[in-house]
């Protein structure tokens, strides 16, 4: 069977023009599949990079009091421990201005306890006394680096001169990258105790962050957001109405949902590209059927049945599909590489929140795109082959010598 298939294939694409046509059709199909894969991968990559970036510096869940600063009661802490939440990090978040030379910017100051913060977020800040760590976009927009000095301007806290802001000079001890443009542009970290002292809030904080306990980690990574959501509601029940618990993606949840819907919609629209390239396959099949009618007639005259001819055609088209799928993977890899390495493909961070992206595709995405292309291919080409094979065996011969 393979020998016949190989002979048939060689016969069809033996001449240069047929070969070039085949090459074009193959590249066209590969490229269309790659376009869909890349688009889906780009959107999944966006969601994945967004989630990863959002999780950095915040933990899986965080809660705050509707009443502002608060102090956790030991009883509540015990209840949370009973739920498996052992590690938590308390922080103070407030708005401020940073001033350097003659430039100032509105920022979000996070007063953290470096040790517990690292345990929850895995982020090593390297905070020292009277120092701050700034986001890398902020550092670059202010033109500052490690060792430089900046001034923080806090709206509250000037006890001597009530109503006037508090200004304090800090040394930059580190520059941190979150992977999210907005965070990198706004976040400034400092020791919680120093910030508490400046704000005069004592041992009170306004935010607690923690991770999903290990025993609640689902085996499938995809189910993690659902597990986090479940814990969120449990914690909300424990803390009561005065507290609000939010997952790390909370602030961007509508954007992430929109991306999911967009992914589906664009995936469907892009099917048109596949259909167009499958019409190319169809025209290729029709072209060969006409151009090689004498050769096809010979195969039939020598004993190939119409149904076997149809199967051989279909196998040929399926081979084209397999090779196109394989080649589309190479296109996707190439695009992924370009995305990560070519500056022309870097995203404008102020629009997309993310500086760089990489494609994120799972088995389901590949299966969906490849099988979608296959369904279109089989539907369109099988119908065409059925119509073509209704002609008599002699059709090719008569046409050739007419």
């Amino acid at each position: 069977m393979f020998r016949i298939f190989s002979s048939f294939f060689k016969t069809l694409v033996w001449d240069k023009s047929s070969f070039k046509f085949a090459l074009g059709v193959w590249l066209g199909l590969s490229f269309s599949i790659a376009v869909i894969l890349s688009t889906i991968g780009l959107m999944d990559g966006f969601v994945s990079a967004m989630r990863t970036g959002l999780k950095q510096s915040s933990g899986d869940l965080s809660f705050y009091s509707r009443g502002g600063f608060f102090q956790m009661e030991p009883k509540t802490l015990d209840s949370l421990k009973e739920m498996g939440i052992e590690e938590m990090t308390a922080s103070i978040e407030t708005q401020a201005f940073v001033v350097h030379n003659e430039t100032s910017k509105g920022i979000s100051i996070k007063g953290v306890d470096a040790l517990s913060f690292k345990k929850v977020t895995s982020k090593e800040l390297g905070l020292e006394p009277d120092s701050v760590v700034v986001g890398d976009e902020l550092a670059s927009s202010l033109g500052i680096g490690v060792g430089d000095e900046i001034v923080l301007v806090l709206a509250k806290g000037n006890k001597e001169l009530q109503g006037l802001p508090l200004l304090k000079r800090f040394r930059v001890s580190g520059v941190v990258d979150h992977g999210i443009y907005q965070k990198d542009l706004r976040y400034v970290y400092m020791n919680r105790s120093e910030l508490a002292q400046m704000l005069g809030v004592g041992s009170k904080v306004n935010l607690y962050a923690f991770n999903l306990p290990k025993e609640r980690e689902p085996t499938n990574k995809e189910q993690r957001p659902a597990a986090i959501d479940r814990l969120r509601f449990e914690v909300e029940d424990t803390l009561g109405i005065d507290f609000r618990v939010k997952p790390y993606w909370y602030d961007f949840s509508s954007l992430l949902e929109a991306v999911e819907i967009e992914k589906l919609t664009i995936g469907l629209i892009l099917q048109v590209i596949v259909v167009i390239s499958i019409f190319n396959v169809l025209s290729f099949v029709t072209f060969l059927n006409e151009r090689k009618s004498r050769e096809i007639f010979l195969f039939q005259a020598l004993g190939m049945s119409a149904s076997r001819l149809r199967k051989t055609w279909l196998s040929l088209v399926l081979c084209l599909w397999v090779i196109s799928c394989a080649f589309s993977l190479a296109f996707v890899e190439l695009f992924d590489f370009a995305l990560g390495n070519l500056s022309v493909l870097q995203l404008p961070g102020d629009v997309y929140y993310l500086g760089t992206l990489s494609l994120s595709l799972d088995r389901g995405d590949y299966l969906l795109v490849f099988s979608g292309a296959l369904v279109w291919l089989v539907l369109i080409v099988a119908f065409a082959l059925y119509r073509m094979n209704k002609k008599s065996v002699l059709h090719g011969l008569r046409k050739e010598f007419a």
Partner: protein
Amino acid sequence: MSLVEVQSVKKSFGDFVALNSLSLELEEKQQYAILGASGSGKSTLLYLIGGLDKPNSGKIIVDGKILNKMSDENLAKYRNQYVGFVFQFHFLLPSMNCMKNILLPAEIGGHKVSAVEKRAKDIAEHLGVTHCLKKFPFQLSGGEQQRINIIRALSLRPKLLLCDEPTGNLDSENSNKVTHLLKDLAGEFDSTLAVVTHDALVAKAFENQFVLKDGELVNSLTGSAAPPIPPFLG
């Protein structure tokens, strides 16, 4: 004993009637020339006997089997195992060498290729084209190509050897050689030979002749009598 019976066969292509209630018989192991001008229906008759097309009405019975009633699959098997075709334009695939061209029917029919290959080499030696087997068709002369075509037709020892203008592209010397070659080989392989031709000189080499005109059988000659040359061919 009749190997092929053509009974009141009609075949038309659109408005054009290629065969009109044609009936004839081909005896087993006999050799026939089917003579006629262009458009007389001789090639159509050959292809109907060869199972490449089906008549609009009438019957074609080969070895007791009605071709019209055969399924597509069985008709394909019939073409592969029962019939050997020799075409005017040689019909050798340019993408493969001559030996592969010869082995094509065996590959299509799923026959043991090694046995067919040995037979092909023997015939090639007999026809003096052994040196052509590894060459591609475009490297051969017209006569050599036609010999390869004949080897392919005989490769599966067909009961029925059907030739459509096998000498149409050859000069008179080669034409004569190929005609006698076909006759000799068909005799050697015990095949029934039917040669379609418009050339009265080719037809002259056959004891049995059918003359077709406008899709009808106008003359049927059997035995050793030398046939007259019909006026439309002269």
